[in-house]
């Protein structure tokens, strides 16, 4: 790989051990994919709570504050978990506090969200933003036209430390054309909610081999943001899709021809009523109708989603625990609208946590004997991870069905009438 003089100094250990180890990792990864060189990044995004402490210490050893911006994924909140009476919260305090202290020394921003485009931190078309978190990788690539390659959480820390990333994969324009085409087969989407788009994305992700770019054809143009986001972020849950074009909605897909680069797709995936019905069934993993927890905000809620949940909860009380994963700034806006108060009066809770993999109510290693044994969610991604990581029963349905479940403690969700 061709390195600049500055990069050679970084690799030679002239700065500090953290930079040396980080660039060594980037060079090795780049060379294994025949990358010609490293390129500067627009900004970086990491997860300190998901990084093992030993790795975090090795990669940040001696590293001074970086000149480029770095942001972070949802974080743990063990002090708040304690306030909520979750028995094993104490186990999480020490490591979290140590890593957070170092994070702040580096001058990095405490965005603590998997949806930081909602905070006004989003890439422009063509910006190079290496990051951990497959959900924001696919959102930034697809919805904003950023250049984000598939990348692991540990490697994203190395890229953030160095301000560089290997020139490979989806950073190269020729690799961004869709090779897999999705066509809707006699599906009327007129009455679809966000949850229906989650279900469609989950099916598609499962059908695409590896992380080949996909294009979805046949949806209404200028799809609302919440719907487009739900569709693309569900794909890397059931598979590894990192770039998904939507014809008429996403920036690299004004037409089908532009999304495919005028090439014949390697595979056409057809989605009809049967596929939607089977996927909806597959996302529902439960035996009796008792609901103990309701999770919203995977990915972190938009202000519109919070507004809809508040309207449904107005004057009501919940029987289950109800968690909304949202970034602090979006929660602050919800508070100014009066929506946060409505939700909290009903018994709902806000936290900038990952409500799926890191949901404190469904994780036995946080909630201990208070772990919820069943959870309802409007997100396919959340359903997948709450079931597999938390090992609890999962109900998948619309926002309205989930709010009703929170109020009654019973699941009355129905299979949609696919038209």
């Amino acid at each position, binding site marked *: 790989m061709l390195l600049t003089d500055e990069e050679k100094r970084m690799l030679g250990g002239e700065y500090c051990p953290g930079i040396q180890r980080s660039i060594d990792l980037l060079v090795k990864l780049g060379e*294994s994919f025949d990358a010609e060189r490293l390129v500067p990044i627009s900004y970086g995004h990491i997860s300190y709570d998901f990084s093992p402490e030993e790795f975090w210490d090795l990669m940040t050893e001696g590293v001074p504050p970086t000149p480029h911006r770095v942001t972070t994924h949802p974080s743990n909140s063990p002090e708040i978990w304690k306030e909520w009476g979750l028995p094993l919260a104490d186990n999480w305090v020490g490591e979290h506090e140590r890593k957070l202290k170092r994070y702040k020394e580096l001058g990095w921003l405490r965005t603590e969200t998997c949806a930081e485009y909602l905070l006004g931190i989003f890439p422009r078309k063509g910006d190079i933003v290496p990051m951990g978190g*497959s959900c924001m990788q696919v959102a930034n690539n697809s919805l904003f036209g950023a250049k984000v390659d598939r990348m692991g*959480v*540990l490697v994203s820390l190395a890229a953030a430390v160095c301000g560089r990333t290997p020139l490979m994969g989806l950073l190269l324009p020729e690799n961004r054309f869709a090779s897999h085409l999705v066509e809707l087969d006699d599906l009327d989407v007129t009455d679809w909610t966000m949850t229906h788009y989650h279900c469609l994305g989950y099916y598609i992700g499962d059908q695409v081999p*590896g992380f080949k770019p996909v294009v979805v054809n046949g949806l209404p143009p200028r799809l609302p943001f919440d719907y487009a986001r739900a569709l693309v972020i569900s794909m890397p849950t059931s598979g590894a899709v990192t770039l998904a074009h939507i014809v008429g909605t996403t920036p690299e897909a004004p037409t089908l021809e532009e999304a495919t680069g005028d090439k014949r797709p390697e595979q056409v995936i057809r989605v009809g009523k049967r596929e939607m019905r089977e996927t909806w069934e597959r996302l529902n993993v439960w035996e009796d109708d008792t609901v103990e927890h309701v999770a919203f905000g995977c990915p972190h809620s938009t202000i519109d989603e919070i507004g809809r949940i508040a309207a449904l909860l107005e004057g009501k009380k919940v029987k289950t625990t109800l968690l909304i994963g949202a970034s602090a700034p979006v929660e602050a806006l919800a508070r100014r609208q009066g929506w946060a108060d409505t939700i909290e009066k009903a018994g709902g809770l806000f936290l900038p946590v990952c409500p799926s993999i890191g949901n404190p109510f469904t994780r036995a290693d946080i909630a201990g004997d208070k772990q919820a044994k069943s959870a309802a969610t409007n997100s396919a991604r959340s359903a997948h991870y709450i079931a597999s990581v938390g090992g609890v029963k999962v109900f998948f349905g619309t926002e309205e069905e989930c709010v009703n479940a929170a109020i009654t403690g019973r699941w009355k969700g129905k299979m949609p009438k696919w038209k």
Partner: protein
Amino acid sequence: MRQRGHHGKVERKNAKMEIRAHMVSAGKAEGEALVYNGPFAFLGDLSPVTGLICMPRHKLEGQSLVKKVFVFTTGKGSSGCDFAAWAAKKNGNVPAAIICLESEPVLSGACITTGIPAVDRPEKNVLELIKTGNHVRVDADAGIIEFEGK
């Protein structure tokens, strides 16, 4: 050396086979092969506590990857596969080496950060030629896979 084949016939075992491949992650290792014709995710498929495949209904559910040469198609799943691999490695619960048809950046990053020797793009179809139980040597630095095939 003689071995009893699938249909009760006595078959001769052939001499050593060598296949060239492309280095993903440096190092040399050897062990018993475990061959799986599908993709793999360190996060979700492998228990870092036991080293066993823990994904419910997985074809290899309950089988150990520890000290094996794991042969499969490609990587898949969460970008957290690398920290899951790190946790498994700390417990000594990772394969000795990895051979896959075509790697992807999360799998490659996981192997490089945790120091698991790995190769991909083998010149011959390793999923057919290597059998579970074969003794396999992987020299990732030289890009060579060696095993006793039949």
